[in-house]
């Protein structure tokens, strides 16, 4: 706790686009209310003020993709009583984890003119290196889920965030189903975004990672039956959460099956 008795909050950034941090800043309507309940002690993107730790609650944005970031998450873990992976990069590896299927040196060579300057590792979720108390899914995160989590931490309970399939949420909003036309990832993707994309007529791309207990094998068979190629299916599985264990297993199994067909 800070001297004024308010819990101290920290936001760290690893390899990411800063879009999830921006979502926090986008909460300006309620940011003052949050600021009334917590002390934003360390949030480099928002403020020059950087109070030293320890902090009561820390949010880590981004995937871990270089050795220095491994040290950074370890420090964050030491500094924070509650540590939250903010967004799908931190939670599952996110978009950066798409590179994991290629050899590291090849990725570096493709992207950088001077690969010898780069020391990167496979993109991994924060939980690969330190214990994480909660994850906030999404690319970017959903602001109301962020608030749910902050409120839960402040009153000392486990947050109840949706982990079931997006379809349930989407049907309850009476959206027309996009699956047949688009191969929407909703059936195996975790809800909690308010079915934002399908509500706007756009297929779900799976940015929130797999729903709890998702039938990925069944979904892959279904996509292939609808005419999607094995490569398409693997790409979809690996886009946002390829490093998430159940997705990784499913994608690996599909690739193995293809290679040994």
């Amino acid at each position, binding site marked *: 706790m800070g001297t004024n008795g308010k819990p101290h909050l920290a936001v760290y950034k690893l390899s990411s686009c800063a879009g999830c941090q921006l979502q926090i800043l986008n909460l300006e309507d309620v940011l003052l209310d949050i600021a009334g309940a917590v002390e934003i002690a360390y949030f480099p993107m928002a403020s020059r003020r950087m109070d030293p730790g320890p902090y009561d609650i820390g949010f880590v944005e981004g995937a871990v993709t270089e050795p220095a970031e491994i040290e950074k998450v370890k420090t964050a873990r030491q500094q924070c009583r*509650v540590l939250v992976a903010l967004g799908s990069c931190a939670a599952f590896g996110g978009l950066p984890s798409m590179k994991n299927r290629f050899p590291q040196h090849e990725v570096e060579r493709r992207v950088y003119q001077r690969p010898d300057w780069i020391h990167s590792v496979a993109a991994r979720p924060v939980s690969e290196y330190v214990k994480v108390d*909660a994850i906030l899914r999404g690319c970017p995160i959903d602001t109301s889920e962020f608030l749910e989590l902050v409120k839960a*931490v402040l009153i*000392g*309970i486990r*947050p109840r965030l949706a*982990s079931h399939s997006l379809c349930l949420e989407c049907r309850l909003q009476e959206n027309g189903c996009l699956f047949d036309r688009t191969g929407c990832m909703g059936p195996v993707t975790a809800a909690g975004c308010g079915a934002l994309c399908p509500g706007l007529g756009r297929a779900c791309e799976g940015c929130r990672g797999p729903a709890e207990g998702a039938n990925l094998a069944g979904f892959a068979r279904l996509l292939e039956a609808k005419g999607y190629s094995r490569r398409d299916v693997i790409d979809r599985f690996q886009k946002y959460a390829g490093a998430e264990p159940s997705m990784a297993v499913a994608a690996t199994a599909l690739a193995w099956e293809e290679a040994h067909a």
Partner: protein
Amino acid sequence: MEKLMTPRPAVIERIRPETADTLVYTLRFAEPEVQQGYTFQPGQFNEISIFGVGEAPISISSDPNNRETFEHTVRVVGNVTRALARLREGSHVGVRGPYGKGWPMERLRGHNILLIAGGIGLAPLRPVIQDVLRHADLYGSLEILYGARSPAELLYVDEYDVWDAHPQIRLRLSVDRMDGTAAAAATAGGGAAGAGASNGMTGVGVAGPASALAGPQVMAERVKRATVALERYGGQVGPVTVLFDQMVTSPRGAVVITCGPEIMMKYVALGLVERGWSPEQIFVSLERRMECGVAQCGHCQIGPLYVCKDGPVFCYKDIRYLPEAVF
């Protein structure tokens, strides 16, 4: 019309630490007319509300003859119970109930009772024990076989002498293991982490640890008393079924009431059937996820039964072949 799911305020009169992760709450409805109109049957439960956190179904563990207050024995396992553990005497909670079908009290009258409990499962059976103590003439003998994981986890240690001293009551104890007592004492004061769901935070947040739980010293003292009790009441090491060989109650004209982990009740039931008891004589109390308590939210269904309405107490004969029961 009475609002079906709106709880009434109740005052926490007293909080007593029971084990490292379990507390006993004495409650009284804040509105006298509500308290006056409140009665329950042993084995029934209330829905306890901590506003802002949620609601949890918790069995009533006190003497049904006491109309002034009622008690809940609460193990810290989830959000609501953890929040409860942070409250102090004098705090208010929301309560609605009682719900469910309790132990078959009519059937118990005039019969010998074999009561078999495991861990926190003794809580919903305690009202039966207390009714026997108060109305001994209505019942035959009561044999209590009670097992816990370790001495530190035995509930109601301070009541055993009163129970066993009663001429109709016999108590026998078991623990899965004698060790682990130091570890259990060390986790006192907020150690109970609760289950980690996929999004779950396993630790407590910034609101601080559960304050009402017993500290290490209190626990060490309790473990000592529990160890003495174990010696006094034939303490065996092993699952509660190790006590079957010392059992004195014979199946003839007796009724079994059992509550504990489902896997324990399964082996209790199987063991008793093997020893000549009939499934029709055995009553079990099931645990399922209950949210509304009034057979509407659907969560607690098992086959055609709503555990909240048709149970939680069931006759073993009626549920042993249900597809989703562990029996």
